[in-house]
């Protein structure tokens, strides 16, 4: 208990004596965490978009020509139902399509009311049970007469998934890189304090203080730097993201018919990541900088 008190007190004293270097470290680590948060934000939003679109992945929509009769459509449905990998096929009228469309637009759906004619075609919707067969089924469907167009999401989803994957990997690579740089920055700051106290440390060692007793205050100092940086970057991220959602959230919703990840959810998740990063960067930095001094 006494030791804990001593450790924390020493850490604050060192932090204070080394103020300018501490501030520079905090600044550097905050910058890195902010860059990281930018990537996280991108990643989380693309990921949620991908998830949303994946729901459409298991359907193929065949848009019918205007002169295709309901009987012809039923024939197509009957034929498709017999294909391997189809779980269901049904007819969707243009009215139903319009209603769905309006629903997607949500509060702005009234804008569609001004349309004189319904521009949407009738269609046949094919639900796919086995995704592996999706390409073959789309190809088969192209053979029918009376089809205007095939709406097939696979390539879109594929692209999106690839983009997600790419962002995921680059986020991880960037994260590792930034963490290493942060650790170096912190360890250099702490090294300064250690140099200032090299004499004291050597005496402590000769008198028989344990390594952890000597290391303690420096460890706490590093963690302190990490935590302060995490707090600052979390705050900045919150303010900036909140503002971004405010400004472009609606447009994104209309464009992709998908909402941006809400700020509360984002910050809650970031808090854990940042705190963990801050603590580990701080402690790794201080342990590395002390290694040489505690060797013997």
């Amino acid at each position, binding site marked *: 208990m*006494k*030791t804990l008190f001593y450790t924390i007190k020493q850490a604050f004293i060192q932090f204070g004596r080394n103020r300018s270097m501490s501030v520079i470290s905090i600044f550097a680590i905050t910058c890195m965490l902010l860059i990281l948060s930018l990537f996280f934000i991108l990643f989380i939003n693309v990921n949620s978009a991908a998830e949303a679109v994946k729901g459409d992945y298991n359907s193929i929509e065949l848009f019918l020509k205007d002169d295709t009769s309901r009987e012809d459509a039923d024939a197509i449905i009957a034929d498709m139902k017999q294909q391997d990998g189809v779980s269901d096929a049904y007819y969707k009228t243009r009215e139903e399509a319009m209603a769905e469309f309006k629903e997607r637009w949500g509060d702005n759906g009234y804008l569609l009311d001004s349309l004189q004619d319904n521009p949407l075609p009738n269609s046949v919707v094919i639900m796919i049970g086995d995704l592996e067969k999706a390409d073959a089924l789309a190809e088969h469907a192209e053979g029918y007469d009376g089809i205007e167009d095939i709406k097939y999401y696979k390539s879109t989803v594929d692209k999106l998934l690839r983009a997600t994957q790419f962002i995921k990997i680059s986020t991880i690579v960037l994260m590792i890189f930034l963490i290493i740089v942060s650790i170096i920055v912190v360890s250099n700051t702490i090294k300064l304090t250690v140099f200032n106290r090299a*004499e*004291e440390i*050597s*005496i*402590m*060692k*000769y*008198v*028989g*203080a*344990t*390594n952890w*007793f000597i290391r303690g205050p420096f460890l706490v100092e590093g963690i302190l730097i990490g935590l302060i940086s995490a707090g600052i970057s979390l705050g900045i991220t919150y303010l900036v993201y909140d503002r971004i959602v405010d400004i472009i959230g609606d447009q994104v919703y209309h464009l992709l018919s998908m909402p941006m990840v809400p700020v509360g959810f984002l910050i809650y998740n970031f808090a854990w990541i940042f705190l963990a990063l801050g603590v580990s960067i701080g402690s790794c930095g201080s342990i590395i900088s002390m290694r040489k001094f505690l060797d*013997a």
Partner: protein
Amino acid sequence: MIEFDHVTKRYKSNIGLDDVSVKINEGDFVFLVGPSGAGKSTFVKLILKELDADKGTIIVKGKNVTSMSAREVPKLRRNIGIVFQDFRLLPKKTVYENVAFAMEIIHKPRKTIKKQVPQALTMMGIADKAKKYPDELSAGEQQRVAIARAIVNRPKILIADEPTGNLDPDTAWEIMQLLNQINQLGTTIVMVTHAKDIVDKMEKRVIAIEKGRIVRDETGMYGYKEALEDAMGAFDTMPVKSRDTFRAGFRRGDRR
């Protein structure tokens, strides 16, 4: 108390210690002498486990230091006091705090600290300097503080690394008296030194190390070998006849 058994320590390019076996008993007062780079520091660092031996075993206070884990090293050092040539006092702490520091960092209770620090200061004759800072003291007084710090935890072994190196002869002799006193209270003392006059005057056990080997281990004087070599140097320039006479005389007088 301290036992080296065929201990070898090599550095990248040169030898620190080469197959050294020696035993230092409880209550001994031992001088460790020899030219710079002979292996004296290696010897001391091996006792403190600042270095690991390449070969052989070292026993300190009944514990095998060679096989000791890093976690046990602090415990080992709590049984060994150490004094340096350059005192190594903390300039921002008072005399009292410097000495108390050695007890605080190994979690001694405050009551014990309040009792033992003044005792150590009194024993070193600097009780009246307790509130001064190191830079307000003379070199001799600073070394007394350093010794007080080394003995305040009542170690069984005291290692003094050239403790008189920065002191004038009179002050050095005072310090030697203090070390002698500590030794008489039962502490084993290992003192590394170059001070020939002090060694000669003290008439304690002298271990001479050269090129990593113990070349002499006996009670008596520092310069036995050097004196011999000096004499031999002068010897070669003498006429043959006087050489013989001289040799005979030297043989008689080389050991007192």
